[in-house]
């Protein structure tokens, strides 16, 4: 006759009443001789019945906004050879994602501007496939962000003169939610603004690459051109700067000088 340890694997199915006949006879023979296992089966059966009776309540409901975002992802292109339908996404998107995922493994949130920029470029490309819904009221969005994440966020509103239209905001998935991501449409193209609630070097989990970290000394001079770092990653341009212990980034597929103009607008409205 099997001992208690050997019979354990058969108990789950037995407690559900789902055992095959041969297994059932074997378990019952053991239970007749083993009070401890009889207690175990009783407890297991009770827990099983309880969970199944409360299945619906335990499962709960997904938030409505999540439901909509998931449905919106039907529009995502297949992984098979992708037709070049989206002009702002480089053809090497898949390769870029793989490369950036590798960087993520190596550096966590990143020890350098290069790594951080790579993560944001990937997120920029991913997020515009399913833009956030809801209103684009910067005050409401800022309050929601503070309530959910514990730190205040000022968001630059739409600006006709700049050709900038705010679509919404969300947590940046590629950095495990540690970065706020504001999505804009700018001259008909996607434009992202990211805010990290620390300096890049402070958030690094490994020894930072001091050669590549930003020149913080310039950061407090609001209009000093050298305060902005220009980085090109995976076909998009990024302007990165730090202010007040935070790191700001503007990302779009645009020439560097034009993007710096947007960066200055964002800086004026958010600092």
């Amino acid at each position, binding site marked *: 006759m099997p001992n208690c340890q050997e019979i*354990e*694997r*058969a*108990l*789950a*199915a037995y*407690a559900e009443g789902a055992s095959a006949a041969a297994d059932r006879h074997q378990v019952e023979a053991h239970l007749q001789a083993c009070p*401890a296992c009889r*207690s*175990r089966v*009783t*407890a*297991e059966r*009770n*827990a*099983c*019945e*309880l*969970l*199944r*009776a*409360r*299945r619906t*309540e*335990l*499962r*709960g*409901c*997904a*938030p409505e906004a*999540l*439901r909509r*975002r*998931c*449905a919106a*992802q*039907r*529009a*995502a*292109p*297949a*992984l*098979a050879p992708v037709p070049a339908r989206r002009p702002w996404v480089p053809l090497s998107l898949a390769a870029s994602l793989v490369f950036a995922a590798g960087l*993520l*493994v190596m550096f*966590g949130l990143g020890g350098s501007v290069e790594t951080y920029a790579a993560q944001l470029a990937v997120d920029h490309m*991913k997020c515009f*496939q*399913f833009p956030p819904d809801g209103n684009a009221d910067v005050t409401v969005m800022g309050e929601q962000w503070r309530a*959910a994440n514990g730190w205040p966020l000022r968001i630059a509103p739409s600006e006709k003169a700049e050709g900038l239209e705010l679509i919404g905001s969300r*947590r940046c*998935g590629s950095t*495990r*939610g540690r970065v706020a991501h504001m999505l804009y449409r700018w001259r008909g193209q996607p434009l992202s603004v990211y805010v990290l609630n620390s300096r890049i070097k402070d958030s690094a*989990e490994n020894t930072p690459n001091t050669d590549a970290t930003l020149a913080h000394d310039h950061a407090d001079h609001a209009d000093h051109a050298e305060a902005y770092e220009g980085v090109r990653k995976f076909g998009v341009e990024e302007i990165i700067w730090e202010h007040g212990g935070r790191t700001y980034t503007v990302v779009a597929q645009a020439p560097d000088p034009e993007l710096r103009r947007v960066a200055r607008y964002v800086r004026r409205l958010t600092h």
Partner: protein
Amino acid sequence: MVFRRRPPPPDGPAPDAAGNSDGFAQEALSYVDSLYGTALRLTRRPADAEDLVQETYLKAFRASGQFERGTNLKAWLFTILHNSFRNMRRHDVRNPVEVNSETVDGAVDVVALDQNPEQLLSRATLDADLQAALDALPDAFRQAVWLRDVEEFSYAEIARMIETPIGTVMSRISRGRRLLYEKLAGTRVGAGGRRRDVL
């Protein structure tokens, strides 16, 4: 890895950008509550759970050509969810992977067997207690019990999903249920002094 796009059925509904038919997408989206509930149990953070579910659907729609029609779509989605979760954990130093099988080795002596499920169900606070008892289970046991008793997957499907031998899955379900019941019974005894914490 080779991704193949399957042609849509001749008279079927129009596919979307990834070639998903309406039927595939509708069925896939009908599991969002299950996926979210499971993601919450895995991540324990609503925001992370939402990211995980959204990532699951993105991958599912993009790789829909890999899904074999006629097989269990829900199990396929859950496999993507668990794979994504494992990747997330690997990348997140805040959450080292825990598999704590030894914790319950000594937890087989049940405290109280004098209440059946109906009696437990009559308690107004049952759902909160049940949620708390589930949350207190070691991750590996909670995951196995949840997938079996709440999401109704077969042992074989769970084994594939969490990349664990089927015998280990059965053992975890068995132990997880017993530990859960013990926690509930202990909660019932409460301040009366008979409670025995096993973790």
